[in-house]
């Protein structure tokens, strides 16, 4: 299950989302440590970020498809220059475009944590980890699949 591991990797002082009618379901799933993607129930196409209609067939009918929490790094960067004062102690950190397994090709931007930035590579298998940023906000980040909860991977 995708929600097994959680921790803290980023400071409290980060941008936070204001959920709206289209995105609330995604954030609600995150709050319970479930990684989901929005899937059109008319044509089956997935989309991310969530949106009001399917960009393929324009149907408004959709469901939240639960994902296994594994995936692959499609691309990444190592951010070395902090743009918020609170990030100065976190740099360098990895931002990645992740292709979650089972997401029908939809990709998500997130972070890869618990990794030496120099070890990052495209195609790296990753596993979701959850960061509880507040009582109602959990963010899905990823770590290398090879890493173990007791400290492997760095």
């Amino acid at each position, binding site marked *: 299950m995708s929600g097994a591991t959680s921790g803290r990797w980023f400071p409290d002082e980060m941008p*936070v989302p204001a959920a709206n009618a289209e995105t609330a379901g995604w954030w609600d799933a995150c709050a319970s440590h479930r990684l989901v993607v929005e899937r059109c129930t008319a044509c089956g196409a997935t989309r991310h970020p969530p949106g009001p209609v399917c960009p393929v067939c324009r149907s408004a009918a959709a469901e939240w498809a639960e994902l296994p929490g594994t995936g692959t790094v*499609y691309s990444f960067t190592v951010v070395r220059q902090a743009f918020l004062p*609170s990030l100065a102690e976190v740099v360098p950190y990895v931002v990645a475009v992740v292709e979650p397994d089972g997401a029908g090709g939809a990709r998500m*931007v997130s972070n890869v944590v618990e990794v030496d930035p120099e070890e990052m590579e495209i195609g790296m298998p990753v596993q979701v980890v959850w960061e509880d940023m507040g009582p109602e906000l959990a963010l899905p980040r990823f770590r290398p699949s090879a890493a173990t909860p007791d400290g492997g991977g760095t």
Partner: protein
Amino acid sequence: MSTRPGRRAVICGAALSDYPLLPDMSEHAVHAQAADRALADAGLGYEDVDGFATAGFFPMYSTGVAEYLGLRPTYLDETNTGGSSFEVLVEHAAYAVEAGAAEVVLVTYGSVQLSQMGRRLGTGGGGGGMVPGPAIYDALWGNTLVGNYAMAARRHMHEFGTTPEQLAAVAVTMRAHAGHNPHAQYRDPITVEDVVGGRLVADPLHKLDCCVISDGGGACIVTTAERAADLRRPPVWILGGAHSTTHHLNLSAMGDLTTTAAARCGPVAFERAGISPSEVDVAQLYDSFTITVVLTVEDLGFCAKGEGGAFVADGGLGLGGRLPTNTDGGGLSACHPGMRGMFLIVEAVRQLRGECGPTQVPDARVAVAHGTGGMLSTGATLLLGREAP
């Protein structure tokens, strides 16, 4: 929409404001200085202007600048596609004059981004805050503007073997051009080693892979060939234009990260102009980052997808190279006030009028100006010619 006889759109005046550092000017004052100079260039006055177009970062932006300039236009456009806005605005202006909806459209840009940053220093800035809607989906992760372009660059390197040294060649060539531009923000020559040996901002992009941050602006005037016939300057013909978008601000929604909106709007613009990429003599390509140029030369058809790295290496974008590009030094070295598209148009006009001195491309007859906006989100291609189509 069919063009009425004699109403083919041309650019009859173009100019830049002062740049790159304007601590004593407001953003509107930059618009005004550029507008004054473009009108003087054309031999026109504000009383001749019946159409106005600009783009900026708050709603009803064009009406604010129009008020400041004392304009009461009957044609108004503030389409904002980010850095590519001004190519779009000029394309729209061409349609407007060709349809008879306007006679003289003034298009202006102004920014004091650099000076404003200085004024904000020490005030904290940034921080958390609520970010509404889908735009948050990439911002949550500490992602940055340069981070998005870096991820596109990384993917291009992965798929096609593009190297940091090839990306660096873009910056080196732009700096060489800037050496001939007395106004350029940075003019001292640099080497590939200077770029790849410099500080990484967001891997694989180094500091010198990123554009400068500047103050500045520009303006141009679109009218009909008929009206331009008795003005001061030889007209520059608007041969064709097109624009497109792949996504808004979330890079995850872009697609493959190596194909930009230019792949869609470029071919349409060339078809509308009735020319092919091989007929382009000089290029002005948005260079927010070195990778932006590599992606653009591929997507506009100057080389095949994946060959952009080799295309730009070894001076391919230099004077006498395969595609002389950003002859003013570009956003990487000369000036980048945030939405650089107007600078591309003004430099293209100068090249086609033969005014570029040491960086003049001999006998330049056809120029392309291509803007890129957002997070590699939008593209807009404008093809300009020295001679009537």
